[in-house]
């Protein structure tokens, strides 16, 4: 058992995009705010703050979930991946990000980081999804620009590419 008092800023250590990091915050601090303000991962976007819009979705121990419905303390000692961890260390984009660009799957880009993190886990779990399954996964995200068509095509294309690569590997 471990107790964390409300008025104290506690040291919280976790792995962020493969790097061990430590920050300080009170128990009531949301993971989304901790990642943005204390650790500088501003790719975590904060929209509705009650789990509806999906913009703050990150992966904790590989699982896509809402950083606004998670306390920073709940991620202590965990492995957190944000959109900053999707590309290469040299700034090159990952395959999902490239496909989003090709398919015009983003306009303003506010919802995009969350969708990318969900899609990343979704494709690992479902390497050969149909359109219905992709749309069901996307129902946990709100995008007010693109109308979702480009997003669906991009995700389906990456699934195809990855299956191709796996066949030739």
């Amino acid at each position, binding site marked *: *058992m*471990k*107790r*964390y*008092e*409300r*008025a104290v800023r506690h040291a919280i250590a976790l792995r962020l995009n493969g790097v061990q990091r430590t920050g300080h915050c*009170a*128990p*009531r601090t*949301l993971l989304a*705010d901790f990642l943005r303000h204390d650790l500088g991962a501003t790719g975590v976007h904060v929209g509705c*703050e*009650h*789990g509806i819009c*999906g913009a703050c*979705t990150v992966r904790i121990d590989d*699982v*896509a*979930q*809402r950083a*606004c*419905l*998670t*306390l920073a*303390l*709940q991620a202590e000692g965990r492995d957190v991946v944000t959109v900053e961890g999707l590309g290469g260390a040299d700034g090159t984009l990952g395959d999902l990000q490239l496909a989003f660009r090709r398919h015009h799957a983003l306009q303003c880009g506010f919802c995009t980081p969350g969708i990318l993190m*969900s899609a990343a*886990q*979704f494709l690992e779990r479902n390497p050969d999804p149909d359109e219905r399954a992709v749309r*069901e*996964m996307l*129902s*946990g*995200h709100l995008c007010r620009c693109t109308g979702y068509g480009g997003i669906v095509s991009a995700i389906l294309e990456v699934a195809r590419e990855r299956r191709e690569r796996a066949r030739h590997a």
Partner: protein
Amino acid sequence: MKPAPFDYIRADSADEAVALLAEYGDDARVLAGGQTLLALLNMRLAQPRVLIDISRCADLDYARVEKGRLAIGAAATQAAVCARPQLAGEVPLLAQAFPHLGHFQTRNRGTVCGSIAHADPAAELPLCLAALGGEIVLRSARGARTLDAERFFLGALTTARAADELIVEVRFPLAAGRTRCAFAEVALRHGDFALAALAAVADADGIGLAVGGVADRPRLVRWPRLDAGARADALNELAWALDARDDMHASARYRRHLVRELGGRLLAEVA
């Protein structure tokens, strides 16, 4: 949209969590997946003095078949239960209901027991538990007790859980050989809470129909076998008996319509 301050205590076992509830009672809220509680904290609809986090209690993180039931511990996520390859054979009603329950991203963290504990009248898991005659296991420093769904759900967001009790497990009866079940709901958007959600379970003794989203808690009625003519009358009677209310999402009249319409489809499906 940020929570009011609270002390946070991470319990490592069910024993610790129960001891903490004995100490803090009403001043504490139990945090498992947090997919409802964190939203309530963010909106300051809940302002507990203490949060007791049970999500890392390894002894509560399980889903296993025992004594003819699927027993699910308080730390088990909806995604973990949903991903059981055998689920459609074990508790087919759950397998049918899961896709309607929130979203991929919230099921990843939300727990089965947490949804039961919250007791939203329109939530799918309380409805399934009521339809199947499942049980809730409560533990406190005073001892343990087991309640069936009917005695547990008392009203909207209101249950028989005492302030010092922890829901340690819920149990869904396994489908027996000839049982048939069906699930249907209507929501404004996929993954939203239902305007009306219905679950039907038929066995040799008759048919049970449970309705969520209309009354203040999931309601179960049982009939002996109904022929097609008697069905419409029985459903109409049920639709009126549920005391539907108007709210911003739907009228009482539309909810009664859904009970008759979805009920008719489900009864035909399991007949």
